[in-house]
């Protein structure tokens, strides 16, 4: 870490430099590692087009780093960016994992955020668990995975591979205060859709709770096998397909002495899983849910501690 002596004022700059030099003599200073294309403080990964558009709009990340799938706000040739956005090549774990691995290798982001929409899970009465509803935003507390339970005729058995859960310190120091303080309704820039079945008043909220990842190979949510697989995850608030991908990748890629990435999953609720299918409602809410999630992610990133790049004074 560089020692900041700038408070001494311009008159003492030379002295400050000399003191700094003495203090750091014989010490090797390392900053956050570089990837092949440069360095990013935060990497935001979206999957479906609605999620990518919402993130691009909210973060104003429109400039493409040449010959890469990454978008930034500042000069794309800079090599050192604050927030970088990408869209996964497909919405399953294999391509998503590859995309996350590539982003890590290219940019070594300190924090990764999986941003987008998810299905809210309902209780036995068909109501969203913990009051979760359309347009609400979930910041994942931990990630479950349907395939960690092998359900057979002979019983249910645990199966695991190593994963990371969303960062606990980030949850404590960023997500929790954000969920208490942030005025999501005031920050939203999109009109809330009026298509709701059954009709009700929805006030956007931020939840912190478990998310469960389904396995796309097992079919969609209406498939009886999938429904059966989700049953044991009775306290998860939402279901998606990709969280397990980032959980596995971050765990696997946190393998160098020099690189310790953390991640968060921020999901807007675009539909409720359980009540009869309503394609129109889902279609109407998808852009709004993606927007709400992007607004929360923007605030989440704003609250992250800054990691100064060399030569950048904060």
């Amino acid at each position, binding site marked *: 870490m560089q020692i900041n002596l700038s408070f001494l004022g311009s008159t003492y700059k030379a002295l400050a430099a000399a003191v700094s030099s003495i203090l750091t003599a014989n010490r*090797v200073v*390392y900053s956050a*590692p*570089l990837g*092949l294309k440069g360095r990013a403080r935060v990497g935001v990964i979206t999957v*479906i087009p609605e999620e990518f558009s919402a993130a691009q709009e909210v973060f104003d990340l429109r400039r493409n780093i040449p*010959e890469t799938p990454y978008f930034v706000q500042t000069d794309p040739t800079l090599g050192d960016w604050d927030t970088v956005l990408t869209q996964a090549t*497909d*919405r*399953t*774990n*294999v*391509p998503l994992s*590859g995309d996350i*691995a*590539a982003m*890590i*290798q*290219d940019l*070594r982001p300190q924090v990764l955020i999986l941003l*987008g*929409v*998810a*299905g809210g899970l309902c209780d036995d009465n068909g109501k969203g668990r913990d009051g979760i509803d359309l347009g609400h935003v979930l910041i994942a507390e931990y990630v479950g995975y349907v*395939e960690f339970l*092998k359900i057979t005729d002979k019983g249910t058995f645990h*199966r695991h*591979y190593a994963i990371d859960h969303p960062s606990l310190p980030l949850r404590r120091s960023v997500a929790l205060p954000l969920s208490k303080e942030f005025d999501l309704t005031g920050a939203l820039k999109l009109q809330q859709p009026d298509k709701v079945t059954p009709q009700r008043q929805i006030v956007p909220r931020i939840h912190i709770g478990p998310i469960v990842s*389904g*396995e*796309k*190979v*097992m*079919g*969609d*949510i*209406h498939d009886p*096998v*999938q429904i059966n697989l989700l049953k044991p995850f009775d306290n998860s608030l*939402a*279901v*998606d*397909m990709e969280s397990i991908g980032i959980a596995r990748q971050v765990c*696997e*890629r946190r*393998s*160098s*002495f*020099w*690189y310790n990435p953390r991640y968060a999953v921020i*999901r807007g609720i*675009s*539909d409720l*899983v359980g009540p009869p*299918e309503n*394609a129109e409602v*889902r279609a109407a809410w*998808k852009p709004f*849910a993606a927007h709400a999630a992007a607004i929360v992610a923007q605030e989440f990133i704003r609250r992250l501690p800054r990691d100064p790049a060399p030569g950048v004074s904060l």
Partner: protein
Amino acid sequence: MKVSPAQQLQILSKAARYELVNLPDEKPTFALRLGWSHNYDDLLTGIHSETDENGLLNKLLEKGKVVIAGRGGGGKTHLLYRTMKRAAAAEFIPIFIDLKKWSGADYERWKDWTAADLSEGASFLIERFSIPKVSSLELDWLPPTAKKVLVVDGLNELSANVGQQILYALNEISTDQVQTYVIVADRLVRRQLPSERSWALSTILPFSEAQIRSYFGDKFRIPNDSRMLEIPFFLNAAIKGDLVPGGRAAISSSFLRKHSGLTEDQLDRLARFALDAYLENKARTFAFSNLLQSMGPEIAHKILAARIVEKLDDGLAYFSHHLVHDYLVARHLARQEPTAWTRRTLNAVSFDRSSFDVTALILGLLKGQRASLFLRTLYDWDLYAAGYAMAEADTQGDGPTKEMRALIFAMLAEKRFDIVMATRQRANDALLIYQSPDAAPYRAATDLPRVFDAVRVVDSTEGWFNEWRRLFLKPLGSPLDDESLNLILDTDSVRGWTIANVAKRTHLSSDQQSRLRGLLAQDEAVVRWRAAHALGSFPAHANFDALIRALDQDPEADVRYGAIRSLIEMACYSDVELRSVIATEVERRADRISVDNRVATELARALLIDLQKAPQDWLQTVKTISRSMFQSTEDPTNRDLWRSVSSKAEALYGHENMTFGG
């Protein structure tokens, strides 16, 4: 760690510099040109942008990982040496991973290290083969600002499966460790790159005539077989006066005689030893004590002194260039009776179909009918190997006959229109690599009738060829007479397999189909395989029952492989009801199929069929089977395979809106 990262950097930099100084120099030093392609299709077709050797480091910095795919003798190793020196000058730490030192025992070690996770293989590679010696932890301990490049030589000298796994492990370590780059030298063959976007693909371009002249000066007269001189190994031989007519085998022979001082008889014994070394180890290395025992101390030390064999520290040794080892093996096998060309031998000398240099050399050594006979043997073993061997062999008109070549091309070309996309790709690759003009019509054919046209124009009075041609040219949907169908039993592989393929595209009566079903009980495994192969085109419950029985009960892996492929093919051609039955029955057998590796792999390949031929509900069939296969395995790599099949199927055949979690 006992030292700080900065100290670790100093230690490793010094060790790397020391190793670089000791790298052998190539004299003369050739300046190679590299062709860079976006993907394997372009690479094999010859679509590339060109750079000099310096372009390699730029690409490396841009992409992170580079594959240099090239033919044997193409100068890959010396290019790697020079690149390491350039990398060091650009402040990289070059770590050389020399897979040429891989021994037979390393296959077991590799299996052991990667049993839980393929990624672990990178640590094994570094700890076992790195020069300078370093562990993956020590490598990671270098400061994050230090650029490291793993330079891997000899991937083509390992079995295809392990080669593929090594690429995966290298991909992982370069992602895991900060500022870690990878260069891999490989043979000219399509690999599944773990993350295509982050690999650059290149090949070493052949020397131009101007380049060849620049190394010789004006006095040199370019010989007739000048294509040989486009390759550094042979240009080097020519410059040193070792160029003799007769292709690479003749040059290797001349080189060995001149430099080893061995008599023909002694060379024959060495050739026998070289084959035994491959059979025993499936690797380039062998125990030096075995050489001592086989050849006697005097000869063993003589070839060691002549640097034809190099010794390693751990009691192992290897031939100084793999072409020398390959030539010796080819020399031995070319002189044997065809009964010596067994599947086991061909598997061993090709490292399980990973490298076809030996088979190409054998083909180059054989003349006329014997060459054609060997090509038939290759065809019987692996059609694609026959194609590759023909492409690589240096035959100047006295190799396989034009008829035999036309036959191989035609059989490959027919597979370009196979229903299974992976089969099409393999056939295309095998034809693309063949530069000779007589392959062009087969490569250019846009449909099967155009392939027939190419076969028709072959001017031949050879009886066997014209008989084969008569069979091959049976049009789609035409009837096939019983006499022709009976050729499926023929011990001649060409006739037997041709009729198995022809039967698939002709019309067989119920009786003929019944006869095919009966053949599934034959003693000869290859006949059962051919019958299973043909039955896939005839959707009927009786045929389905026979194939599922073969899948369940046949002791021969080839037959089970043929049965699963045909079942999937049948599902594609059948009505909804039978398709559903097939999917359900395959689903029920998922646990069993999952442990039958060859069958499971073929199932994954076969499910991805041509979109134009896929029935409307094909996605559902693929999903049903993928799901059961996914659930039947707990291995993350296999699970990823089935996720990938399902995901590719959705991209290809899916028109459904996703209703899962948004």
